[in-house]
Each structure stands twice: as C-alpha cells, then as structure tokens.
C-alpha cells in the first residue's frame, strides 16, 4: 500500500485501503471508553478546517477527531474570512500554504474544489463534502457502522432512499458499499434518481418493492430543504407518505430486523417518524460516534507532504 496524501473521494481508493481504514477505526473507537481519550500521534501537527458551507456536525466531528490525536486545530469559516472580501480560492490556498498547516479539511459547494486545493498544497487535503460530488469520510463511517452490525459486506443489501441525485453522501456511500461487495438499491422520487447510475444498482417504484428485495439496511437521505428550490416532488407530506418511514412501515422494518441509517440531521415527520429514533436497530447515533473514529483513522493514515498527487 502506497502512502496517500489526500482523501478526495471513494472512487480513487483501493479495496485494500478502504479495509485498512475500516480496520483502524475499531481501535480508535475503543479510545472513547478510556479515561484519557487523547493519544499523541499528531502532536505538533496542525489541522485547518476550511468550510465554505455551513456545517456544525461534520466540522465538530473532524475537530474532535483531530484533537483526540493531539493535533492543533484552527477553524476557518467563510463568514469570518477574507473570502467575503473577494479572495480567490487559489489566493486562499497560497495563504494557507504559507501558514504551514499539515492537514486541510475542506467543504465547498462546488465539486472539485478539494482536488484543486490538493494539487496546490503540500498539506493533506480531506474532502468533507464538495457539491454533489463526494463525502468520503461519510462513506467510510457508514461502511464502518455497517461492518459493526453485519460483520461483512458480500451480498448484503442496502437501499438508499431519497434525493440520490443531489447527494454526495449517496454517491460516496453507495460507491464504498459496492466496492466492498454489497448490493445497492436506490429508491426515491423519479427525478431524484440519477440516470447515469451503475448498471448493477437496483431501483424501486414503491416501498413494498423495497421490502420485497429484503434489504439488511435502509439508508435514509436527508431532504435538503435548502436545495429544494426547484420542486422535485409535490410536498413534504407527499414525500413522507411515499418515501418516508411511516409508523406502518416501521412495523414491517421491526418485524424483519432491518437496520436504519441516516447521515443526519434528521427531519422528523419527513424521512422518518419519531418512533424510528427509538427503534433498537436505528444506527443514527452510532454513525455519529463512528464518524469520530473513522476520521481519526483517516487523519492517522494520510501522510502530509508525501509526493503522490491526485491528478483529477
């Protein structure tokens, strides 16, 4: 396995690398149970979070992960930075390069910005979500969470429900699960299911068809209210009725022991009813906890300054 500088997407990772990060996430998760949660491997290293889109959870998760590895963390947020003063991304990168940070964690509304930064910086760049493109640490934490409950991936069935088209979570999570040998299905309003999906991805017309496929996991995507300016479905009520986990569907899910995952934050009454949050096979909180472990594993694994560059 070659040293890797950046984590930009799931596509460019080998199965060996994915399995390495998943295996390493486990001991990092165990640290949480200890009285001293901090370990020293990134002592003296500097992590910068660069978020061009608002996010509290992902940024905090990265920040906690970095701090538990003893790194110093600086948060660079758009509203307080010179981006609002008109600085270009390249100029920002030059500035960051001069600050000699070791890791840059980027979220941006446009696809490809993390790749651009990675090409111009010797720091390790971790993509924390770029446009509709990728959210690789989410993919890794989802795979880690599934591995904990299912053990292996071969032949496991996962249905991703919701706005697959605009979801970088769906893209990264479906890619990683397929690479690991799981079978993936998409279910959602017609216009929100991408046409250019891989041929082995199954699609469904109704929730009953989803149940007939006998999935182990139903992965609910968040309906992004802020991206719903163009109407892809008539109303939230309608969405809930057709694609949400209703009380009636929860009965079937409970009966069959299907796991529920969701990247958070959830819209109660849209993707799922309240009762799902207390359903014993809901993995949503476990995903949050595993997010820290997976991100620690990623930070520990990447090697800043190594020569291998990602060329698109």
């Amino acid at each position, binding site marked *: *396995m*070659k*040293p*890797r500088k950046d984590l930009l997407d799931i596509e460019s990772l080998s199965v060996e690398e994915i399995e*390495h990060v998943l*295996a*390493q996430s*486990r*001991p*990092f998760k*165990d640290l949480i149970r*200890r*009285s*001293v949660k*901090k*370990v*020293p*491997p*990134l002592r003296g290293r500097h992590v910068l979070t660069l978020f061009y889109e608002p996010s509290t959870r992902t940024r905090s998760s990265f920040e906690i992960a970095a701090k538990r*590895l003893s790194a110093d963390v600086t948060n660079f947020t758009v509203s307080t930075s010179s981006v609002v003063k008109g600085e270009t991304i390249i100029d920002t990168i030059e500035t960051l390069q001069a600050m000699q940070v070791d890791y840059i964690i980027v979220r941006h509304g446009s696809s490809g910005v993390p790749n651009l930064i990675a090409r111009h910086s010797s720091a390790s760049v971790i993509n924390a979500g770029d446009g509709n493109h990728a959210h690789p640490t989410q993919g890794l934490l989802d795979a880690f969470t599934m591995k904990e409950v299912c053990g292996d991936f071969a032949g496991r069935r996962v249905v991703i429900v919701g706005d697959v088209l605009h979801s970088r979570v769906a893209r990264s999570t479906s890619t990683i699960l397929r690479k690991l040998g799981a079978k993936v299905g998409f279910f959602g309003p017609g216009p929100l299911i991408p046409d250019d999906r891989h041929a082995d991805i199954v699609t469904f017309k109704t929730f009953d068809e989803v149940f007939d496929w006998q999935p182990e996991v139903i992965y609910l995507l968040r309906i992004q209210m802020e991206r719903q300016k163009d109407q892809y479905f008539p109303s939230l009520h309608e969405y809930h009725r057709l694609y949400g986990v209703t009380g009636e569907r929860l009965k079937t899910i409970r009966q069959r022991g299907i796991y529920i995952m969701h990247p958070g934050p959830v819209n109660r009454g849209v993707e799922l009813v309240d009762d799902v949050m207390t359903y014993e096979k809901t993995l949503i909180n476990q995903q949050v906890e595993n997010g820290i472990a997976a991100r620690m594993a990623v930070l*520990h*694994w990447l*090697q800043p300054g190594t020569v291998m560059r990602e060329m698109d």
Partner: protein
Amino acid sequence: METQGQQLLGAREIDNRVHRMAFQIQENHPRTPFVLVGIFKRGVPLAKRLAKVLEMERPDVKCGAIDITLYRDDPGNVSAADVMEVAEMPLDIDGSVVVLVDDVLFTGRTVRAAIDALMDFGRPAKIELACLVDRGHRELPIQPNYCGLVRHTGPGEYLRVVLREEDGQDGLYLVKSKTDPVTPA
C-alpha cells in the same frame, strides 16, 4: 527443525524461562494483586502464558494487551500498513501493580511508549517489566525486573522470537538480518 540462524532457545527452554519469570513475579507480589499486560505482538501470548503458569496459585491475575503504535517517538516511521490492534485492558488499573510483558528488550523505546500508553488507561501503583530476552543497547534508562535470558547482540546480529500462538512453533534465534525468515520445520 530447519531454520536460518542459530537457535538460542528451544521450545522447552522458553517454557522453563517463562515458568521462572512467573514464579519470580509471584514471589515479589505474594499477596498484592497484579495485572499482566502484553505489548503487541508477541508480548501478548507471553503475558497469557505467565498467567497460565500462575493460574492455580493466583486465579485473580488478569491479563491485558496494549498496542503502542500511537505512542511511538518516531511516528514518521509508522508505515501506513502498520495495523493497530485493539487494546484489551482489565477495566481498572488504578492503584494496581502492572507487569508489562514483551518478547525482546532492545533500545527501551517500545517500553517507554508502552508506559505512556498505560498511563492513559489509569494510574497504576507500580509498573514492572518482564521480557523473554534482553539484547542490550539501551537508549533510555529502562531495565527489566524479570528477564528470561540476557544475550547482548553485536553488529549485524538480530534476535527473532517465534511463538506457537503467532508462528506455529516456539524458539529464539540469532539471525543476520532483520528480515531473515525463520522457517518452521
């Protein structure tokens, strides 16, 4: 048994030395409880063997395992393929005597890292060190409390411990390079 390198200890002798160390530990702590903590990789089966020797007299002895990857003083040399193991630590080591167990004691840097790692699990009353073989060349002020064999190595000499739990057979070999394989018969 066909192996590259000179055999310094065979299975029987390793067994004897493990027994001797176990009884020395027991003699030092006749009444106080203690915890045996193996350092990955081959310290872990050794710790279990020590506990097994004492199981009749000291059924209260607990075993643990720690991985020092995150505590190394040369993090740059940790290759991406170095896989961390899951630490197994008896729930509470606060106030107890901990005996660290490793196969080969060399520079002392691994033990330094293990002590740091241990401190993050709690505050032991005392930490001791048991090693199967001491090959000398310390770079830190660390000495073993219990030692199976002292064999200081010269230039171009390396020690290789193989244990049946990890390698299918027991033995201590003097080899000429770090990577020399020790092939089972």
